[in-house]
């Protein structure tokens, strides 16, 4: 055993835990830890320009790799600046460990300089938080933090570290704890076999089934088991915004996304189904629309690792609590044993009906013209140029929905967006976290001119660490989604949804040392994107002027059933 200061214990622990990068920003209460970081070379620290971005970076890393992202900030404003990032990760069940400096324990409660009750402030938006009360606790508390963050339904864990806990002259025995003891926390490891059998039998007997897959399939690493299920039964599958890529977007059984901006075929199939199996999804209000009208003829099976998600918004018939991967494995074993087949005639007529719905809209939009580029078209060209294989992050708004609808994700962990909290400013730092650990992959942030300005300062971080990601700005010179709602619900009174004084984005990114390109004409679109992606070592920011009047369709009509939708500005289902 070695004798180490609290600060050195933290850096030793992170190295022993296998952490390669931490994202953060120094300040008074964290300086002992920053000094310890300086004196080691195993953990690389990335200095951001705003603490919120540090959390989104860690979050992007976690979403792409499944491992906890780690953040280090100081007390007070450093800590409170992380809150939006923490809440973003919490809502989407993303594992993070956020280490926050705190004023010395002797000053806590005295309104000291840069003191904030981070335990209290963060409590509603964390899976758990812990304060260090003695330096010797540091290894155990950090081990618990990583375990809690990454197990069960993952989530962010905050560790509050008073400055005196990291004092350089006080040393304690350090040993990396290989095990965690937590008597009050036992995440489910297997689903109930009787329930799984019942679900398997119901699936085989369904006539109009839909598989509804969510982010839990991606987080649970169960994409292969899902694909096997779809192939085995030949059932239609729709993915939530968080679940895109869990089943290939270009796969033959894919109905695309469901919900508020879901495809006609996905929402119609859900509404007309006789059996819905939800796998790692939580019947979010952006999926169900009016809960009293949700799937009126369907029996519902729900697989979820979090028992609190069962029957929270929609009452289900067969709940299965467990990790989706292990539940699906067990279900496949039961299918092998049952050896039955679904009713092929019923299935054929179900698919026929689905194909008719598909023909109704099919993701069509008015074509672009030389002077008016459609945002959907930009995403389709992006898909083509990147061969559908890029990591795509987004911010929040119309561009996010266009990216979700038109970039057909064929792999899990490639579509990275703030689905639950809807955090503008997420996309750029999330892309940075991914690019840092996936230097040979294409990483693109699809954004809007509102969102990008919420964390644009991070272009500076990109320069410092050489992160040659690509930014595609769908520039409609307005807060597009807000404007769309104002068009639809407020007689086009565009209250504060127009941004005057937009910067010259090309000059702006050039001043940060990157490459800026602008597209105004249709015939420049593909060639400019090709040119951008050919610059492997440069961050290229492509400002594409798109049709400012475009709306995202289909769009569910509020409080209706899933299949009550606007198909375009004048037609509805």
């Amino acid at each position, binding site marked *: 055993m070695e004798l180490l200061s609290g600060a050195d214990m933290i850096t030793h622990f992170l190295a022993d835990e296998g952490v390669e990068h931490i994202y953060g920003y120094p300040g008074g209460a964290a300086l002992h830890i920053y000094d310890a970081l300086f004196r080691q070379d195993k953990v690389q620290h990335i200095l951001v320009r705003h603490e919120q971005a540090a959390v989104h970076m860690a979050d992007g890393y976690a979403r792409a790799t499944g491992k906890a992202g780690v953040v280090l900030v100081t007390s007070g404003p450093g800590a409170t600046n992380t809150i939006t990032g923490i809440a973003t990760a919490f809502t989407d069940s993303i594992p993070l460990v956020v280490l926050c400096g705190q004023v010395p324990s002797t000053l806590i409660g005295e309104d000291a300089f840069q003191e904030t009750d981070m335990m209290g402030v963060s409590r509603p938006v964390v899976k758990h938080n812990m304060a260090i009360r003695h330096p010797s606790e540091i290894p155990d508390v950090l081990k618990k933090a990583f375990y809690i963050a990454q197990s069960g339904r993952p989530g962010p864990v905050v560790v509050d570290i008073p400055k005196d806990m990291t004092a350089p002259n006080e040393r304690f025995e350090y040993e990396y704890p290989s095990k965690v003891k937590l008597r009050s926390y036992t995440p489910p490891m297997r689903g109930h076999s009787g329930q799984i059998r019942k679900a398997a039998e119901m699936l085989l007997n369904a006539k109009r089934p839909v598989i509804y897959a969510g982010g839990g399939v991606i987080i649970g690493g169960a994409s292969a088991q899902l694909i096997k299920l779809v192939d085995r039964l030949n059932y239609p599958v729709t993915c939530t915004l968080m679940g895109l890529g869990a089943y290939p977007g270009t796969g033959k059984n894919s109905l695309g996304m469901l919900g508020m901006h879901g495809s006609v075929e996905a929402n119609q199939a859900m509404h007309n189904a006789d059996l819905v199996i939800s796998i790692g999804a939580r019947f979010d209000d952006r999926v169900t629309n009016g809960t009293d009208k949700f799937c009126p003829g369907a029996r519902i099976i729900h697989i979820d690792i979090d028992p*609190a998600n069962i029957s929270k918004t929609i009452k289900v018939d067969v709940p299965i609590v467990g990790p989706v991967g292990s539940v699906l494995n067990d279900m496949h074993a039961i299918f092998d044993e049952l050896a039955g087949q679904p009713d092929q005639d019923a299935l054929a007529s179900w698919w026929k009906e689905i194909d008719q719905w598909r023909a109704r809209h099919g993701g069509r939009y008015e074509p672009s013209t030389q002077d008016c580029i459609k945002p959907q078209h930009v995403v389709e060209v992006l898909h083509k140029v990147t061969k559908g294989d890029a990591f795509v992050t987004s911010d929040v708004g119309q561009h996010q929905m266009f990216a979700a609808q038109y970039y057909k994700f064929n792999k899990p962990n490639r579509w990275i967006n703030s689905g639950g909290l809807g955090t503008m400013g997420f996309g750029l730092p999330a892309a940075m976290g991914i690019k840092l650990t996936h230097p040979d992959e294409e990483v693109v942030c699809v954004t809007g001119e509102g969102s990008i300005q919420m964390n644009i300062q991070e272009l500076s971080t990109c320069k410092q660490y050489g992160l040659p990601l690509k930014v595609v700005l769908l520039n409609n010179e307005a807060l597009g989604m807000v404007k769309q709602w104002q068009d639809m619900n407020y007689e086009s009174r565009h209250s504060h949804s127009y941004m005057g004084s937009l910067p010259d984005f090309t000059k702006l990114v050039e001043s940060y040392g990157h490459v800026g390109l602008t597209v105004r004409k249709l015939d420049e679109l593909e060639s400019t994107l090709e040119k951008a992606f050919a610059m492997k070592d440069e961050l290229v920011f492509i400002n594409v002027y798109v049709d400012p009047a475009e709306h995202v369709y289909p769009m569910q009509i509020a409080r209706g059933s899933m299949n009550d939708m606007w198909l375009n500005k004048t037609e509805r289902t």
Partner: protein
Amino acid sequence: MRRIISVLLENEPGALSRVVGLFSQRNYNIESLTVAPTEDASLSRLTVTTSGSDKVIEQITKQLNKLIEVVKLVDLTEGAHIERELMMVKLKAVGSQRGEVKRTVDIYRGQIVDVTNSVYTVQVAGNSDKLDAFIKSIAEGSVLEVVRSGVSGIARGEKVLSL
């Protein structure tokens, strides 16, 4: 429907605020709350009385169970149980009131635990309805101060809530 939920909680700083925070965050109702350490100093026993539809109560118990520091919990109202609340009341007691108050206290099997020339301090224990009834039976204007502990509960029979 009114429910009594009993929780074994890690006896750690901040654990209680997590429970209370959960109720306000998710718009659940707390009617009363009691908490104290158990015979095992590492555990606290918390009793919360709440009300809501079956769906809300199911969410309350599930969300409580998700808190890392919640070790175990039981909805006592699902089975036979005993509930008790302690109340201390300061009552005006002068002249003929003194005898009358004393008789009422006896009927409710309470005790007078402190006396001055003009005031009795009375202790009554029982379920919440009994305490309400006691207050109602005291002449209006005589009640000077009331303090109630909130409900504590335990299951009847051999069922125990322990590790």
